[in-house]
């Protein structure tokens, strides 16, 4: 069961859209970070069940953040949300261990599908 969600995105507007797309009727504990470095620190601190991660960010991008998060916890469940929709980018982040990749802007349906996939891995 997913309780804690960490949203890592440099855009507050994007974070607001993501929060709006989360399934209603669920009481998630939500945490936010504005770049990959801050996201990594918050990940270490709160150990979220799922991390929603942007790729194109200042300071530390999502690729590096994903790698670092996986070093901290190889079982970390990371969903990548990005405007970079290149297939090779998708292949790259999946190889780094992402649960799935969804294009920006996300829809409620896509977020729910991604969380369902993450939840199935969490229960294993």
């Amino acid at each position, binding site marked *: 069961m997913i309780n804690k969600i960490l949203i890592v995105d440099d*855009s*507050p507007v994007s974070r607001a859209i993501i929060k709006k797309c989360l399934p209603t009727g669920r009481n998630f504990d939500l945490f936010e970070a504005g770049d990959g470095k801050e996201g990594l620190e918050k990940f270490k601190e709160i150990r979220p069940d799922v991390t929603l991660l942007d790729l194109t960010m200042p300071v530390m991008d999502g690729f590096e953040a994903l790698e670092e998060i996986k070093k901290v916890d190889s079982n970390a469940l990371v969903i990548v949300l990005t405007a970079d929709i290149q297939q090779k980018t998708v292949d790259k982040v999946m190889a780094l261990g992402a649960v799935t990749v969804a294009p920006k802007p996300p829809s409620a349906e896509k977020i729910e599908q991604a969380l369902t996939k993450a939840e199935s891995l969490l229960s294993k």
Partner: protein
Amino acid sequence: MNTSQTGDIFSKDDAAILEEVMNLAFGKASADLAEVIDIRILLNVPRVEIMKADRLFLRIKEETKEYGSVSIIEQNFWGKYTGSAILAFPSTAGKGLLSLFDDDVNVGEEEAPLLEKESLLEVGNILIGACVSKVAELLEDIVSFSPPRLLPRVVINNLSSETISPKLDDPGKSAILIKTVFHFEDKDIKGFLFLIANQNSMG
């Protein structure tokens, strides 16, 4: 469509394919955006041109001069092909774009200017990311993106290569310019997307 100046970088057929890919890419991005903000985006047919780099800013000036000043979102990309994407909205568009997210964001008066900027950046990031990604796939490339950068309220007459990307203003080089005009229906917001790539990287 204007492919008469595509020179030795693209044949007319290549340019036509590129324009079609742009159409598809922008259509996909627009559809995704519309899903969130519940508004239709109308698109013009993309136009592909090759020109000397020092002409690029004159062309952008020509295209946007009716607005007097524009807010520009610039995002650089690099891979086998390298360049910049420039999204230009009239300076007055910030409030309109923020209103697209009204249901999503509760805005206080103090927060509004910041959120207007963030709305511009996010819309730019989505549209540029979708379009550049599709072009990269066409060229069997993978590109990396810099975070988007906002240049608010740039007076058109002051627009220069230094305002945007000095590295593209090498008069000895040619560049490819792809232009699309889009219009947010019911919001009276019009914008321009320019993709600029160095000739060397496109060869």
